[in-house]
């Protein structure tokens, strides 16, 4: 059925089969979206990283197709956002129908002045291929295909792996293991680690079809449409004239039977019309679960992505949250590996991303309760909301066909310095940086000037050259980015031609924001104070006692 030409990545015989290899700093297991993102981030920092994957190609089938603005922003920092954004279909409007009537419509990014759209739709195989290309361009990154981890043990000072290949088995030792081996996580199973949560009793059919159509690039969701009564249907546009149709089937559906073209075609014809011309590219029947590991850090093992948490697909919170996991993890791990901070900083990866996973699980479970009501009364309330939504604006806010992925606000993080000064707006400590158009040495967008390392964003010329140099040359360096004013060799200066940086950050002369390497706000002040910035940096790296 599929017309995609899947790459076959070359297996290479590992040198460890002939002689013991070196002890490694960090190994990543799993070359999916999350593992590759982690490895690229590490390698881009110059940290040698080995990636092991038991397969030799990308995702079979389009699978995860909705990549969020935040994912694109993270990948921009990692040098591979543009090919993905350019290849994908951007969208921001979602429409929800009951029957054939529009019940509710939302716009996920109603304002302009952001580099990236709310979402792009792109087949997971294209997404992964772009990451593999970026990975292969980084000398510090080694990718090993068809290398399967068969055993993991860890102690306080190391992780030991057994790896199987077609030429034989070998052993590896490393300081840190990032586990991104997916929903079924063989490593989680090997170690007998918990994975608590609930399985939902419903089945869904995904059909990717090739069809020339000028339907707009919007997310469209139907409750109880005439072409699929009593169930829901979701439609997304992908590149290459591919459309994703997701049919709710109910728990009693036979997954093997429903995958057959003779069952799928009548469903599609009912939806698209008897005369519609299309071909099926890929089809799959899935169920879903909402569950997570109790802890994402187990000593020297760091779990991320689907290996650590699973949500329903309504909301695009799977791959997008996994990429935020490793965005959160890698800068902390890099500081630990450089010996600059205590390994306890990695516990904040656990705390922050468990909180984010709970937010995703809460949203995902709520959507699921609306789409798949678990009782007759739940179904009645759902239908009541949909009936009211036709006439009454208040009910449209209750319609839940999926609350789409937005970056977690780490408001409760111990790494934040609480506000002492008054600010208007939404950029509270813990929030991910809002983008804005700028003129500056790193391009036309604010986010390109933030991230990678700590950055102090200063409105106006309040920071003396000596203070800026002291921040840049500290053991944990912090770059100054100044909004407006004269340039200096100790800082980047950005212009704010539309005033949107000042507007979005409530920036006034003297205002300073401290951003973590993952672009989250961790402190802010109305005036620069070198001591306060040093204390906030110490707190943000897990050493509040120095603050």
């Amino acid at each position, binding site marked *: 059925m599929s017309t995609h030409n899947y790459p076959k990545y070359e297996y290479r015989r590992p040198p460890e089969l002939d002689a013991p290899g070196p002890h490694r700093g960090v190994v990543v297991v799993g070359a999916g979206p999350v593992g590759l993102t982690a490895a690229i981030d590490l390698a881009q920092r110059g940290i040698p990283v080995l990636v092991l994957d038991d397969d030799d190609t990308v995702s079979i089938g389009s699978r995860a197709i909705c990549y969020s603005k935040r994912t694109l922003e993270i990948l921009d920092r990692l040098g591979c956002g543009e090919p993905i954004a350019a290849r994908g279909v951007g969208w921001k409007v979602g429409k929800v129908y009951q029957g054939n009537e529009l019940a509710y419509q939302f716009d996920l990014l109603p304002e302009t002045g952001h580099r990236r759209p709310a979402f792009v739709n792109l087949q997971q195989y294209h997404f992964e291929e772009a990451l593999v290309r970026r990975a292969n361009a980084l000398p510090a990154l080694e990718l090993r295909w068809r290398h399967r981890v068969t055993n993991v043990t860890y102690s306080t000072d190391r992780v030991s792996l057994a790896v199987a290949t077609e030429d034989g088995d070998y052993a590896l030792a490393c300081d840190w293991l990032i586990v991104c081996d997916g929903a079924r996580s063989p490593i989680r199973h090997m170690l007998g680690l918990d994975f608590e949560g609930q399985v939902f009793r419903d089945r869904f059919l995904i059909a990717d079809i090739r069809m020339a159509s000028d339907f707009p690039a919007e997310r469209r969701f139907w409750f109880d449409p005439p072409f699929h009564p009593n169930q829901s249907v979701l439609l997304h546009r992908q590149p290459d004239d591919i459309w994703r149709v997701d049919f709710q089937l109910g728990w009693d559906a036979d997954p093997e039977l429903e995958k057959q073209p003779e069952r799928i075609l009548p469903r599609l014809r009912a939806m698209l019309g008897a005369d519609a011309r299309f071909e099926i590219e890929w089809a799959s029947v899935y169920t879903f679960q909402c569950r997570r590991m109790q802890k994402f850090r187990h000593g020297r093992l760091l779990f991320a992505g689907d290996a650590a948490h699973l949500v329903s697909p309504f909301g695009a919170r799977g791959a997008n949250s996994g990429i935020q996991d490793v965005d959160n993890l890698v800068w902390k791990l890099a500081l630990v590996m450089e010996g600059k901070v205590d390994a306890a900083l990695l516990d904040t990866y656990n705390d922050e991303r468990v909180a984010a996973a709970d937010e995703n699980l809460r949203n995902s479970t709520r959507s699921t309760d609306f789409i798949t009501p678990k009782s*007759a*009364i739940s179904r*009645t*309330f759902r*239908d*009541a*909301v949909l*009936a*009211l939504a036709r006439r*009454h604006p*208040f*009910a449209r806010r*209750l319609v839940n066909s999926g609350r789409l992925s937005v970056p977690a606000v780490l408001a409760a993080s111990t790494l934040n310095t609480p506000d002492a000064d008054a600010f208007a707006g939404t950029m509270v400590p813990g929030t991910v940086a809002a983008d804005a158009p700028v003129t500056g040495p790193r391009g036309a967008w604010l986010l390109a000037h933030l991230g990678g390392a700590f950055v102090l964003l200063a409105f106006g010329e309040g920071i003396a050259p000596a203070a800026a140099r002291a921040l840049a040359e500290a053991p944990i360096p912090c770059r100054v980015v100044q909004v407006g004013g004269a340039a200096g060799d100790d800082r980047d200066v950005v212009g704010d031609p539309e005033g949107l940086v000042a507007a979005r950050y409530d920036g006034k002369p003297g205002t300073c924001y401290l951003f973590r390497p993952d672009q989250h706000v961790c402190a802010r002040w109305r005036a620069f104070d070198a001591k306060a910035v040093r204390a906030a940096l110490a707190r943000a790296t897990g050493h509040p006692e120095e603050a």
Partner: protein
Amino acid sequence: MSALVTDPNIAIPDDFYEALILLHRDLTDAQSALVNAKLILLLANHIGDAGVLRAAMAAAREDVGAPL
């Protein structure tokens, strides 16, 4: 935040009660359930106050017994 009003607050209680029963006249159980659900949602939005809504939900659940 205001508290849930449980003292008499409806001017002519018998009129209200009659209208509530009439609302369901000639409806099937399923239709009645839908009307009730819509009514709850409309009133909940009118009240708006999350504390009052939670107090009302708790009061409604009182004396109904433990879940089976």
